[in-house]
């Protein structure tokens, strides 16, 4: 399969987080940001993430990404996608609407931009997927699927709206001490319509996704552990309409809707045991990396474009075997452009020493990025 190559050639920042001004030119293959804690390595990844998703990976409040005591921030990126140049401009002023331009043309809907520059971020914050509630895991599925399927996103938004109506109705029944089956059925039918479609899409996605995930985990762990990923939904056993009918008495008592695709979950296991309770930190990390790499493959297949891969602090907690297994994949060229952060310069040098690949290293010190005129690349 020939996927279009996507890469970021140049990144310009003004007043983004701890950067006053920065201009970086990247290698189309591997780029490393090296520095101590708090110098601004991850902020560079976040800036790239911004250009793809119109928002920060870490902080959803735009104005808080502006450098302290400044009025605005600017992020600009020159991308090359296949043969095409894409110049993306993001400007945020305190108290004003965020500006987002593609090739000097402003977007009317930010949602139109998402998906143009596919990107996968692997970050220590992913651990939320293991420890937090099921909502985070549903968001993971929804985030991937809705990038390719606008109808899915629409169904999801409609479903949420119907759900709010139904829950409001259940509350009113309780307050007014009455019950009207016909009114409730109106919403049940619509939940069933949107919910069944969402369930089918999620199931189809996971059918494609789970084998990809298994393959990645097996490679990372060199086959020592058998990972399992399971999509749990009550809709697997019965239609949502039936489920709603069965749950009606319970819903009336608790005054909200207790069944539906808003209760779906993903179960992460190693062997027969949930990794939340029984996985080591390294195993959990491997699991999450495999999950993200599977996402990478899936997006590449669907978009026919190689996504950017951002690896934030991933070598920490992984044993030497797993790091090597990962780097083998990097060197095999199965990824497009990669951005890596690490605190340990020597580790990076060691990792890339015997890999023949164009690698640029940037030293990050207090919001200044300095390109190392390094061993295997001229400035």
């Amino acid at each position, binding site marked *: 399969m020939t996927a279009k190559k996507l890469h970021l050639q140049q990144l310009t920042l003004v007043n983004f987080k701890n950067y006053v001004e920065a201009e970086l030119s990247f290698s189309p293959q591997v780029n490393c940001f090296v520095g101590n804690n708090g110098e601004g390595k991850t902020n560079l990844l976040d800036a790239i993430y911004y250009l793809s998703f119109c928002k920060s990976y870490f902080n959803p409040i735009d104005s808080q990404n502006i450098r302290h005591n400044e009025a605005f921030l600017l992020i600009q990126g020159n991308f090359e996608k296949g043969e095409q140049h894409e110049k993306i401009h993001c400007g945020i002023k305190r108290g004003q609407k965020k500006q987002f331009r593609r090739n000097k043309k402003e977007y009317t809907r930010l949602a139109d931009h998402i998906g143009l520059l596919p990107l996968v971020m692997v970050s220590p914050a992913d651990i939320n997927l293991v420890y937090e509630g099921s909502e985070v895991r549903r968001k993971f599925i929804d985030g991937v699927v809705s990038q390719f399927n*606008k109808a899915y996103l*629409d169904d999801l938004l*409609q479903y949420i*709206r*119907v759900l*709010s*109506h*139904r829950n*409001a*109705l259940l509350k*009113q029944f309780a307050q007014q001490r009455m019950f*009207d089956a*016909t*009114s409730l059925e*109106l*919403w049940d*039918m*619509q939940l069933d319509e949107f919910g069944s479609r969402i369930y089918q899409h999620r199931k189809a996605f996971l059918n494609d996704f789970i084998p990809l995930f298994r393959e990645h985990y097996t490679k990372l762990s060199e086959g020592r552990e058998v990972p399992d990923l399971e999509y749990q939904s009550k809709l697997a056993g019965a239609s949502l309409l039936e489920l709603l009918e069965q749950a009606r008495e319970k819903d009336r008592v608790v005054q909200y809707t207790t069944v539906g695709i808003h209760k779906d979950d993903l179960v992460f296991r190693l062997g027969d045991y949930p990794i939340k309770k029984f996985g080591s930190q390294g195993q959990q990390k491997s699991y999450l990396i495999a999950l993200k790499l599977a996402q990478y493959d899936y997006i590449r297949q669907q978009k026919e474009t190689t996504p950017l891969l951002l690896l934030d602090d991933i070598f920490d907690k992984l044993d030497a075997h797993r790091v090597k297994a990962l780097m083998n994949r990097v060197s095999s060229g199965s990824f497009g452009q990669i951005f890596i952060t690490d605190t340990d310069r020597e580790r990076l040098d060691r990792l890339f020493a015997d890999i023949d690949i164009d690698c640029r290293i940037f030293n990050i010190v207090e919001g200044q990025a300095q390109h190392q005129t390094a061993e295997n690349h001229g400035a």
Partner: protein
Amino acid sequence: MDLPSSLLDQAVEQFASLPGIGRKTALRLALHLLKQSPEEVSAFGNAFIRMRNEVQFCSRCHNLCETELCSICRNPKREVALLCVVEDMRDIIAVENTQQFKGFYHVLGGVISPMDGVGPNDLQIESLVNRVAEGEIKEVILALSTTMEGDTTNFYLYKKLAPFEVNITTIARGVAIGDELEYTDEVTLGRSILHRTPYEATLSR
């Protein structure tokens, strides 16, 4: 904003209580009234008082009127067999302006929306069912908003009216006249393709 007169202050407060009016605009309006003659201002004020006290709702269709029945319901030339169901009286004005409809109306007073605390009992649904039950109406045209709440209400009415021998239709939804396809949103265009109409039927009109 400290005003030199408490009377002025009260007037400003009242204006500012209207939707879309802030205190500055309210002050400008109040000062404008102060420049008018007392007679003019009395006429202005009385218009609101009379409106509030004397406007009634039509006992049949719940449109605004000043007598027992509204001017449309009193009109003997209109077709009894056709009934158009709308959300509120503004929609009657809109449909009337098209000059394409010669039947009667029924104003629901809103659509079913539990999130806003509106249920079937808050709407004029029972009176609609009673009108249909009288048997003279042959077609009920549902002309509600094309939102989820509007559609839900449509379906509720459809169920409520199912026992009667009456044709239930909804207004057509699709590409607006004079619009270019490329600027039409996907959902509307998709719907228009699904619910396409035979070309010949469009010729006869």
